[in-house]
């Protein structure tokens, strides 16, 4: 699954990052094995707010689409 497909409240584990923004996303803490939680969508659904490594990050859907995740049961 991809990060942008997750509904608010869902927790997931980062598996991989694709595309040209890889290093940028990695530096923000979206590394393999890190836990992310979708907090909410913006009023117009884009961008989305995720919690990672104890902080809140705003990320556009276009970028979230590059983050491969596995939903945590």
């Amino acid at each position: 699954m991809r990060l942008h497909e997750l509904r608010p409240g869902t927790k997931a584990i980062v598996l991989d990052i694709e595309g040209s923004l890889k290093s940028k996303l990695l530096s923000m803490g979206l590394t393999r094995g890190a836990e992310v939680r979708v907090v909410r969508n913006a009023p117009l659904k884009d961008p989305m707010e995720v919690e990672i490594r104890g902080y809140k990050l705003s990320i556009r859907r276009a970028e979230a689409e590059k983050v491969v995740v596995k939903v945590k049961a």
Partner: protein
Amino acid sequence: MDLVSELALARYEKIGEIVDKCVERIEKPKTFSDLMDIVVTDKYVGVPIFLALMWAVFQFSYSVSVPFSDAINVFFSACAEWAKASIGNQQLASLVGDGIFGGWGFILVFLPPIAFVFVALAILEDSGYLPRAAFVMDRIMTKIGLQGKSFIPMLLGFGCNVPAIMATRTIEEEVDRKITIMVNPLMSCSARLPVYMLFAGVFFEKIAGAVITFMYLLGIALAAVMATLLRKFVFRGKASPLLMELPPYTVPAPKVVLVNAWNKVLIFLKKASTVLFAGALIMWFLTTHPWSATNGGEIVGKSYASLIGHAVAPLIKPMGLDWTAGVALVGGVMAKEIVIGTLGMVYGVGEKSVANVIPKHFTPASALAMMTITLIYVPCLATLGVLRSELGSWKWTAFVVAYELVLAYVVALVVYNVFSLI
């Protein structure tokens, strides 16, 4: 696995180790910040709350600062009068009074709105709300070639483009920031309103309000079109993702807020004022020389500024404008406030009676063209100064002036011809 990922992973493992040793986390079900965010980023009330806050910021910045700007204006006018009365040589008196004191007064009236804008913005920023504002507005703004953080600078442009352009420093993404700066002058600042009011009032009496609204909307539409075009053709292929932290809310520290505002005032004084002052002196020279022919700046019609007005007259003739409009527009390069005053001087009737004379020189269609040009053509000197200091190069500044001149010409021509058909 590739090297970049491994490095990032290793780095974060190390960070985790250190953090675990020295940070104790208290699990709270919902922090104050969480509760705030539930409200301010809500699907229904998030945008209204944002707009209400922006209205407050706008009023605070531009209404509260007015008495301070007025005081500065009065002070420098008095200095100018005093200089002109006490210096024997007329030409020197004019230089010191109108050129130097006038020029400095002109620069310093920008300080109060700048200070107030940045007090308001620093409060928003320091409290942690600013990233939420970008979060809420991002979707709408990306539709028109900008991004969430562009909204506030664009809105501030309706007051004055000077602090508005300086406010783009909150945009970290280089391309987004440049585009926001470059289209900002298209937001109708408060100095352009009197020009709209004069022409709309005289030529469109009953629908003056609608015509003025049209000018504001035209500016917004052109900014959207230009931002999209700039992104597509000038800054093509450069991605600018919006990855930003939404930090916990804090109570703004008064010292941080004041220091921030003070720094912005200093930046304006250091970087923009040199361009401004030089420009003010040039404008003084153009409107008062040749000295004997203009009778010491009394007869604007004989000045170099008027020569330039005459020179552009053939260019603006296709949209029904004559040389008097040309001279007024040359004056407007200094500041849009001056357009009406210059018309008054050219017609020799003073600012108050301009409304009675303009029907002789304009038609409803050419009045619309005049308003359109005033909206789009070259930014005022002060805006030019901050464009230079914020874009960091004369090349980009010249680019902005060039595209605005071309755009003003084309749009005014279209407006004139379309309206003439009706």
